[in-house]
């Protein structure tokens, strides 16, 4: 029997790792993967709370989060490919044409 808070702590650690990756990484694709990590942490929270409150709508919501993540990653990766074609780099620091 595992207390619910253990699941929530695991979800929090995954989310924190996702945010850290988003802030410290410079490669666009790795930043995108940190966003996916954050979404996964949140999914775990949803399923854990669904188990605690016996509400299956938590699991249905996870399904929707996954569908939205799929759509977002498809479009996001297409944008990354388009940026790579024009700027020839995958480093976010170098995509700075609008900088003063």
């Amino acid at each position, binding site marked *: 029997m595992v*207390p619910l808070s253990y699941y929530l702590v695991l979800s929090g650690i995954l989310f924190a790792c996702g945010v*850290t990756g988003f802030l410290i990484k410079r490669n666009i*694709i790795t930043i995108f993967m940190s966003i996916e990590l954050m979404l996964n942490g949140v999914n775990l929270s949803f399923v854990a709370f669904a188990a605690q409150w016996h509400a299956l*709508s938590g699991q*249905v919501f996870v399904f929707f989060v996954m569908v939205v993540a799929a759509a977002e990653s*498809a479009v996001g990766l297409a944008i990354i*490919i*388009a940026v790579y074609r024009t700027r020839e780099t995958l*480093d976010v620091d170098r995509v700075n044409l609008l900088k003063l």
Partner: protein
Amino acid sequence: MLHLIVFSVFGLVCVAGAVNLLVQRHPINSALSLVVVMGSLAVEYLLLGAEFVAAVQVIVYAGAIMVLFVFVIMLLNAGVEDRTKGSGVALLFGIPGMLIGSVLVAWVLLEHSGTESVAVGALPGSPKVIGWLLFHDFLLPFEVTSVLVLIAIMGAVVLASQPGSVQPESAQPDKREV
């Protein structure tokens, strides 16, 4: 007892994969650690009884979305990241800040959540029941997400196509008579 052991083992694998994603400098290693994280999360979902969600996690997330990521990394030939001034500053302030924040959140959660435990397979989410919910109570979000996915498909095809290859027929002058 066995529940706690299995939870801890796969929880440690999750956290190790997440930390490995941060530490690795080549994006392909980060992508593969993320696949490991998703696999162990699927096991955690199974422990909570959400079998359909676990299967969908493996099929959709680990088997399709991450394959897309690996494809793009292979296509664009992404190399090792290099250190810039901005990334050094972010490392210096970001990592301690995140550590302090997550320790605080973990402490609050562990202190104030009482002793509710979740049994193995606490809420069995069989495909039949989830399908019923999806098509009765959540029909509108289901249809809206399907339209969303359709828009995403069209957007991705247009954005990733070679410039000049997706044009309406009338825009191309007939160049054959030279």
